[in-house]
């Protein structure tokens, strides 16, 4: 979706290195989310934000941190990447509990070797 940009699209990194994934939105949505997608699990929520500097943990938050300094940007950081964090990461935005659902970015494929 043109309203959400994720960078990078692909990344290969080594175990133990820090990694930051970026999400930028032009939707002006209050809520932003980070999900990871793994076979057999669908998409699982890592962290979410309900406003600038307001964030909370999701279902699989261990090993991840987030920051939101502006409405448009939501960063996901892996402090010390592990092989279990190899996944496809999606950013999403939305209006919270709404029939509009969420709008998703195109995903980042992260491989930790």
């Amino acid at each position, binding site marked *: 979706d043109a309203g959400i940009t994720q960078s990078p699209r692909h990344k290969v990194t080594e175990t133990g290195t820090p990694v930051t994934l970026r999400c930028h939105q032009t939707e002006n949505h209050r809520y932003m989310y980070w999900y990871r997608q793994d076979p*057999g699990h669908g998409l699982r*929520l890592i962290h979410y934000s309900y406003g600038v500097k307001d964030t909370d943990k999701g279902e699989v938050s261990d090993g991840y941190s987030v920051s939101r300094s502006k409405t448009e940007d939501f960063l996901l950081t892996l402090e010390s990447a592990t092989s279990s964090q190899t996944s496809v990461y999606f950013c999403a935005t939305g209006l919270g*509990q*709404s*029939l509009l*659902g969420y709008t998703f970015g*195109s995903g980042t494929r992260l491989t930790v070797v």
Partner: protein
Amino acid sequence: AQTVTQSQPEMSVQEAETVTLSCTYDTSESDYYLFWYKQPPSRQMILVIRQEAYKQQNATENRFSVNFQKAAKSFSLKISDSQLGDAAMYFCAYIDNDMRFGAGTRLTVKP
């Protein structure tokens, strides 16, 4: 624990035929929203259809329709006149506090 269950990891349908993908979910909320998303090989998440839990009438979008059974917590997706472009991964999801997804059903369309 998975709160959305898609019991069919893979499904196959002949072009122009009809296929139904199943989904059950678990929530204690009385008001929530349900969705089906399509994910083609491009990885993009595309909203297919949506339903408000308090509405009895089943949602329809062109060839896509749902069978929503609130008491049974069931939300199946029917695709009529299947086309080759329908081949994709399909995810069932609901929102109460945040969006929860099933594990997905991979749909193959045979010419």
